[in-house]
């Protein structure tokens, strides 16, 4: 997430096509990622990204440098995405309820999955990538959005809080719970519902195995360790 220089912003505000082009080149990837995170559809995301840049160009003269340019831009994109979801009749909750005990037990049952033992191998696994993709599609939009912003380079918690207009602690809890929820979704993909029902009691009875398998610790609630 490269913050544009003051010179580029100034020239873009004056309508310099070259500066505008540089803004697009440096930001389109992030704007499109936010749009994809919210809308989950490439065509809709492209339309949203284009609309975001149109709004950006129109609003550029009003940018006064009070906040980071990227924060200002991403907030614009997020608001546009939320407006679009509202227009489609979907609710956009910002604060989520705490994870339930049941969900945490389900997270613990992922302990048998050792595919995460090696980062390089995990990245190379097409099957695992597909699983993660499916899980991300099912992940609640606010978790997906906060995680998307979190993985932007140089994006600080404060910036995310400003973009999403939520408290700093909520950002951190969303990141943590988003990961936990993803792990739970991955576990659900591994096991069909019937299997999950049978295996759940076993999970509760095996706290010692967590220490032996790091993936259990990855997703286990901190207080349970």
């Amino acid at each position, binding site marked *: 997430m490269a913050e544009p220089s003051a010179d580029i912003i100034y020239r873009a505000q004056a*309508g310099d096509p070259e500066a505008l082009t540089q803004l697009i080149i440096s930001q389109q990837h992030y*704007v499109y990622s936010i749009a994809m995170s919210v809308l989950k559809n490439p065509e809709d995301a492209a339309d949203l990204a284009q609309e975001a840049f149109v709004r950006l160009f129109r609003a550029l003269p009003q940018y006064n440098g009070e906040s980071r340019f990227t924060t200002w831009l991403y907030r614009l994109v997020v608001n546009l995405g939320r407006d679009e979801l509202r227009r489609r009749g979907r609710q956009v909750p910002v604060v989520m309820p705490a994870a339930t005990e049941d969900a945490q037990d389900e997270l613990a049952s992922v302990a048998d999955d050792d595919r*995460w033992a090696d980062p390089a191998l995990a990245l190379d696994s097409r099957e695992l990538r597909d699983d993660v993709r499916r899980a991300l599609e099912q992940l609640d939009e606010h978790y997906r959005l906060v995680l998307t912003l979190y993985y932007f380079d140089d994006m600080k918690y404060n910036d995310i809080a400003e973009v999403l207009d939520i408290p700093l602690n909520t950002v951190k809890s969303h990141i943590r719970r988003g990961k936990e929820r993803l792990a739970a979704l991955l576990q659900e993909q591994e096991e069909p519902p019937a299997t999950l029902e049978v295996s759940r009691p076993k999970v509760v009875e095996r706290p010692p195995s967590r220490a032996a398998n790091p993936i259990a610790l990855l997703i286990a609630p901190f207080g349970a360790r």
Partner: protein
Amino acid sequence: MIDCDATRELLELEPASTDAALQEHLAECKSCRSYQKPQLAFDTMLRSELSWQAPPELTARLMSLAMAGPAALITPPPSVAAPVRAMPKRWYVVTVYLLTAAAIGLSLAIAWQFISLMAAHMGIGDALSQLLAAPSMGFERLLEMLPVSSDTVSFAMKVREQLLWLLLVAILWAIVDKWNPQFSLQREHVPS
């Protein structure tokens, strides 16, 4: 130095954190190093999967926007964008003025008759006649003092009433014109 619980809490949020205290703990704790590995793998995978490259078609669309410049995107403000209200045609304006003048003239004539009747009834007819005769008397004095002005004065006396009515209409016209600029002949043509 932080303990295992604090270390793992930090790793859950930022597995690749370079925090000094965290690194110090990891250097000495094999269990936490093992804990870090899947966290890193999970994090790396999410970073990769939550990042989408903008499609070339979108880039092309955005570039055309940049080349067009912000001016092409700016829609005129509502006050300018709103269609200009159609101005009335000249014949309509002239008709309205004539009808207005006729109505005013008729009203004045009626008022004059009414006032005359009232003046006669209240016994102020003589005073009013004197007042109306004052200009004539003034002209007679002027003739006596300046005989060469006789032609001019006699002409003015003949057209006095017509001139007074004309003056009244001109004043009313000016008032109406200022009160309702829509009907102004001068403002009929709006610059584009």
